[in-house]
């Protein structure tokens, strides 16, 4: 500990000007006035965003509400392997599997029930990391509300991708 390079920031000595305080008032007023004038004439410096009319530009990785992706025939890509349910730190995913009646291969599984409790979910993205089929990804939708707790448990129909995947507001998903 003795050979650590340190910088001493002990209290500076107060000059007469600072003790009189008038100089400090002028200096302080100048700082706030400068910010005021810059915001008044150079509007680009204003930090406030007029939410919800104006929204911040979020990155491609924002972790929002989940999407269950589908195959070309419209069925879910999910094979009910329970990986996301196992990886979830908040234990908010509930899956019930069943045998796929239309499968060409014997014993292929599909999800009969796939529920996410969005009030329990912490939006960490571990389900996306865990999925071996890219069946669950995240959108950038992060503002939604519910009238009661039951509504917050969303199932396959609410989570399923609507239309082509390019049209979704895509957020956190595997990069490669």
């Amino acid at each position, binding site marked *: 500990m003795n050979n650590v390079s340190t*910088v001493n920031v*002990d209290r500076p000595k107060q000059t007469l000007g*600072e003790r009189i305080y008038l100089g400090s008032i002028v200096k*302080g007023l100048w700082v706030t006035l400068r910010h005021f004038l810059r915001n008044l004439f150079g509007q680009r410096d204003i930090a406030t965003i007029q939410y919800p009319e104006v929204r911040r530009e979020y990155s491609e*990785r924002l*972790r929002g509400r989940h999407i269950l992706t589908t195959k070309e025939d419209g069925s879910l890509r999910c094979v009910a392997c329970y990986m996301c349910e*196992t*990886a979830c730190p908040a234990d908010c995913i509930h899956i019930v599997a069943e045998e796929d009646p239309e499968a060409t291969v014997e014993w292929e599984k599909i999800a009969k029930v796939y529920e996410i409790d969005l009030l329990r979910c912490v939006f960490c993205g571990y389900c996306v990391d865990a999925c*071996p089929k890219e069946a669950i990804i995240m959108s950038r939708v992060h503002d939604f509300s519910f009238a009661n707790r039951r509504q917050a448990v969303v199932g396959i129909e609410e989570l399923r991708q609507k239309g082509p995947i390019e049209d979704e507001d895509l957020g956190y998903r595997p*990069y490669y």
Partner: protein
Amino acid sequence: MTVSSPDTTQELQLLTERLPGESAARIEAAADGFLEVTTDRVHLMEVLRTLRDDPDLDCNLLLDVCGVDYPDREQRFEVVYHLRSLEKDHQLRVKVPLGQDDPAVPSAYGLWKAADWFERETWDLVGIRFDGHPNLRRLLTHEAFQGHALRKDYDPGQRWILTEAETMVPTWVEETPEDEDHFETQILNIGPSHPATHGTLRTVVRLDGEVITKAESEIGYLHRCFEKMSETHGWNQVIPYTDRLNYCSSMINGVGFALGVEHMLGIEAPPRAQVVRLILSEFSRLMDHAVCLGAYLVDVGALTNFWYFFQPREEIYGLLESCAGGRLTISYARVGGLAADVPADFERQVRYLLDYIPKFVDDVETLITTNRIFRQRTEGVGAISAEEAIAWGWTGPCLRAAGVPYDVRRARPYLGYEDYEFDVPIATTGDCYARYLVRIEEMRQSLRIIRQAIDNLPDGPVITDNHHAALPPKSKVYSEMEALIWHFKLIYEGIQVPAGDAYTATEGANGELGYYLVSDGGGRPYRVKVRPPCFPIMQTYPHLLEGHMVADSIAILSSFNIIAGELDR
């Protein structure tokens, strides 16, 4: 190496000499750089006193006290003390195994005041009694709570419905020391829900006029038993939980935890991941100081600075979000590296921030540093001496403001901090004003570190290719059988961390953030103990208050930067 393990043979010899054979059953060097002393409760006090008072050992800082439950062992409980010598630069772990009946040890409060709340917490959560402790009550859970949550036979899903209201009334409330000089005694509750407590804390104070004559703090309102929850999840799944410790600088918590697990696994994150972790940790430190100082200045009546500090903070959140996908709880660190590589414009964003932030710091300095009102409000208020601060277990900016140049980044470098040039800011007065000055200077030093790091950002992967620890890349999972098997094994079985224990320290924004991790060789932590940096600082708070005005209590609390998320866990 992520944690430096210096040659300990000499220190080991010294320790064997000073601790006679009958007092210490076993003395050995642990893999994490700690010297480990195993003793029993009869000899515990003797051992601890020797460690503290012997001039060659000189362990002046008590880092942590915790209890671990091993139901399968003959001696079911183990109390673990972590000690550090600031001068001699060695670190010790003292273990005391205890039987199931009557688990009790003598209290170390007489040796280090820091033991106060750590022992209360251990009593509360593990049920180990500390004989001679002045105030051994439950600390984090409600007083009507039954059982001890961190014992292995306590079911993590068990719920207690508590119907009684908070009834904690300190015993001294009834004593009314009114005489002809003190006739205006009254009891005042500050908090639990008070705008200036920045979280739910409750302090009961006794006033004589406007002067506080006695105080006692009550915490635990945000307690969610993070440590128990960690035991029910895999090693990697703990990282989202660590985000919620000090939520103002969540990156540092995740990195600290990942470093601890990596150390136990004997792996290291690739160089690029180390540098990105370092850059984002320093940005987190900047944000944390900005929040602390912004709120502190609001509390003493200077609102403008709050906006000047929150503007760069918002921009830093933009950077974190572009890397991790989350703003506050980012969950970006993983065991073995990072969740994903940084975006293509990372360097541009960092350089933009490096230009953007200093002018806000300058503005605040112009407004505040030489401001006579602020100086009169904070100079000499809440002052503490270096010896007192160490005795209470302080670390971080608050300790440095008292004149001790102790910084984990320098004392025990990790993430390659030894390769960067920066100075550790210190002040000598230890008052609220000094804490402000130290934090401001630390912000500038953090910018200096980031500037050096971004100039030397190496290329390469950001997560280790050791698939015992890290998931294989998605492109391989989709196409290769081998990778898919690794992926399944890692998700279902978790990372198989070798059995053992290790303490890893990182410099959090408030001081030394330590993780004491115990593994039984399975895919889940056997025990996670966090040493939250603001915990020992908060336990000093009621003692520091005595003799101060009510208004000063707010200034003192704000200058500590108490984050309830890590205080209560």
